[in-house]
């Protein structure tokens, strides 16, 4: 499973990072940084919940 971020859309809300801190964080400029290219299977549900909480639908799993 892979996470991808639509940079055009991402507004730097950071709710995703609050929901799955093990997978992503915001840098000092408020840019979202994905910490893994490939989401470990054990973190699948965390990845989905991060996608769910993004208010502008900038994050996708696939």
């Amino acid at each position: 499973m892979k996470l991808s971020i639509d940079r055009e859309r991402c507004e730097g809300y950071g709710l995703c990072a609050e929901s799955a801190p093990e997978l992503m964080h915001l840098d000092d400029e408020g840019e979202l940084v994905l910490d893994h290219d490939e989401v470990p299977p054990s973190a699948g549900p965390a990845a989905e919940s991060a996608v769910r909480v993004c208010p502008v639908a900038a994050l996708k799993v696939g």
Partner: protein
Amino acid sequence: MGPARPTERIVVVGASLAGVTLADAVRRQGFTGSLTLVGAEPRAAYNRPALSKGVLDGTATDADITLPPLTCDVDEIVGTAAAGLDVDRREVVLEDGRRIPYDRLAVTTGARARRLADLGAADPGVHETVFRDLDDARHLAAALRGRPKVVIVGAGILGMELASVCAASGAAVVVVDRQPPLLAQLGRYLSDLLADAASAHGVELVHDPAGVRLRGTGTPVVELAGGGRIEGDLVLSAVGCAPNVGWLARTGLLTDGGLRVDARCRAAPGVVAAGDVAAFPVPGGGHRRTPSWNSALEQGRAAARTLVDGDDAPALVPSPYFWTEQFGLTVRICGELPARGTPALLRGGPPSDGALLRWSDAGGGATAAAVNTRMPIARLRALTRPEPVPLEVQR
């Protein structure tokens, strides 16, 4: 309530942000019993804030706004509303007559658009149009193609966001309210800022302290109590929302027509509630609904912990976070609203180029707002703590 036993049945009623978050969190907390999610809408849960933004202006597709489906073990009953609750037998009664037994119940039925008719301010026979769900958004998007004259009653967050998208689509827009736009919701400073932006985008703001009444049949005419009538091709009511608690009538769960919860989101023994439906305790006493995305998330997760861990679950300390997009301004706010008084300008000149504002309150805390400024929510939230303001944001 004590911790859930592994074989118990949890039923969640209402399958939007709060309900889906809650169901997901219950499993993530390790609950192994049976889990059922009941939702009235005939489609997968979606991102409601996008309705008045990307869905209306055409930049968000259905795929963009659909929330990821639950992948945990859950029975989903979609397109069927709960019609009632049998508290004695512990059964949710669905509109098709089915009865779904539960040991623990989560109420996440959200809110519906309030109507002027509910407030006694519409003639019988008026066709009142509101905006709350995907169908409403599709209807309005279609109507806007004809560049109608739009009259919006209610200058709160929803009314102003709708005004913004309607104006951007080329419609002539009038917004009517008893109060200046957003004053009650956001306070004077942001009210002035957004009202100026609305005017600059050609929106006419009308203010009648005595209120309005919808007159006629079919598309109504807006009659101002202070005199005057406003006609439009489209009249939208955006006068707040009311909790979906009709199905809980005569259960003893309601107080003054609302569903109150405690700081662990408990409404009664074995019953939790979260999101737009729930009236949460307010510091200083009383209860208030906090209909916002972040509250639905926080409360959904907190209620899940309460269901699974019982009284050992931590009390929720809300961290209010809210945003709105309108008239070229994206405003994100952490802390209590409305913000009173004049804010300190921590950064920026004209707000449209980006500004960071901070209102100190008497208790030493603060409300902080970022206007057209990207900033991690954690840094904005840090500004709501008592002074001194962290050095790095003073630049």
